[in-house]
């Protein structure tokens, strides 16, 4: 019996590099996984690779209508989600002098509004869970950059800090209302993903940049998507049944 047998998960940004690892790991642990993404081709390919345990749902996380439709599709197909991973995110390196208001708003829309809406729909879908059942679990992807500012990333760091406290507030609300829902913020460091590659400075190579990043954490390497996916599978399971409203770092020690 795998630890997520019978659970239904929705992973936003499920078709990206990190999202794929999360979807694959949740499925490997027994969950049925809705791959939610704006990239239909990639999302469908991943969902079909998961067989009967995979489902693609189109999702632009900034759209309330899209969230409603995605949740309805999952609920009609399998039932209401037990696990929501708010993974979709946006990063465009631009320091405070370079960043435009449009950059700021887009970052806040995808990372902030997207996670807010996800939490809102997840709480609605999970609030009726009986106390005797496993908790509903909301896992929000914040970042080590949600704790420390970074010169090239004023919008991203601010958006990830917002997610961190959004998570705490959601956890406290659910507790105060007596809902059987846990909410946790995962704080990844530099993970080998599309997003990290965006940070490679002009004139530098991926290898040089990764070597430089590896020197900034204690484990001495760039994180793998599986490092984050492992943590999410643990947090989604009953093994983490007493963990809520807190940060969960997966950062190679980069914030010590």
């Amino acid at each position, binding site marked *: 019996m795998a630890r997520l047998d019978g659970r239904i998960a929705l992973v936003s940004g499920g078709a990206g590099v990190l999202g794929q690892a999360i979807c694959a790991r949740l499925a490997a642990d027994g969950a049925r996984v809705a791959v939610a993404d704006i990239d239909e081709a990639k999302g469908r390919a991943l969902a079909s690779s998961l067989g009967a345990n995979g489902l693609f749902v189109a999702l632009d996380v900034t759209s309330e209508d899209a969230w409603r439709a995605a949740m309805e599709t999952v609920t009609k197909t399998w039932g209401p989600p037990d696990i929501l991973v708010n993974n979709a995110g946006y990063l465009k390196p631009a320091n405070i002098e370079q960043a435009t208001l449009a950059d700021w708003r887009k970052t806040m829309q995808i990372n902030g509004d997207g996670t807010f809406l996800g939490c809102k729909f997840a709480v609605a879908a999970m609030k009726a869970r009986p106390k005797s059942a496993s908790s509903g679990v909301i896992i929000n992807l914040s970042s080590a950059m949600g704790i420390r500012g970074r010169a090239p990333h004023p919008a991203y760091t601010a958006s990830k800090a917002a997610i961190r406290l959004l998570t705490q507030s959601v956890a406290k609300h659910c507790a105060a209302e007596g809902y059987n829902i846990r909410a946790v913020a995962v704080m990844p460091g530099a993970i080998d993903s599309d997003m990290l590659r965006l940070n490679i400075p002009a004139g530098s190579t991926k290898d040089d940049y990764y070597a430089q990043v590896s020197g900034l954490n204690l484990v*001495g390497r760039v994180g793998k998507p599986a490092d984050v996916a492992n*943590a999410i599978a643990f947090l989604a399971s009953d093994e983490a049944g007493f963990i809520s409203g*807190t940060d969960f770092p997966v950062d190679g020690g980069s914030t010590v």
Partner: protein
Amino acid sequence: MGVLSGKVVIVTGATSGIGKGCAIEMAKAGAKVVATGRHEERGANTVRLVKEVGGDVIFVRQDVTQEADWVKVMDTTLSTYGRLDCLLNNAGEAVVKPLEQLTIDHLQFLLRVDLEGPFLGMKHAWPHLKKAGGGTIMNMSSITGQKGGPKGSAYCAAKGAQLGLTRAGALEGAPFNIRVNSIHPGMIWTEGIPDVMGPNPETYRHLLEATVPTKVLGETWHVGTAAVYLASDEAAYITGAEFNVDGGKSAT
């Protein structure tokens, strides 16, 4: 095949409460467990419980404040299981009193158990973990080690100091692939609670529950499963970090 298969772990203070719960969960995940503590009889009980879940376990009598006992624990671990992969510095003491009633002896007692104990453990585990090509150390702190708490001046000071030990250990251990993290339980129900809170738990259990946002007290296995995860290779990218297992209490 559990996530800790083939790994040898030392759990201090495994004779009761959270330590006992961690020993059981780590054994269930496949670890060979060296359970230590001061009380032979309670140690035998932990051994029995671990064997009941199919675990491989020995008990070594140990006072974590005595360096000679640490030497003995390491020698016995190596001679029995041949290696060391993980140390869980769990043994701890608490004194809960208003500042005016706390004495310097209280503080010094807690610093010995909650700070010197883990310090000695890390120091004596270090060469064996290096030899094994790396490993993990987990220090059992408390959410009051992060935030403080009333009647906890001595306890919070000791657990806060321990946090510095954890962070320095993470920095120093990194080149040797030694990961060092701390676990911060919140309100966990253990058989030791009446020692601190008084007899007749039924008269105050609801008061403890009321302090947890989820209104539920944690069980020792909740901390045990977190220890399993952090000790496993699944947490290979995690070091120098704090992990709260507290039903949301630290968010309050």
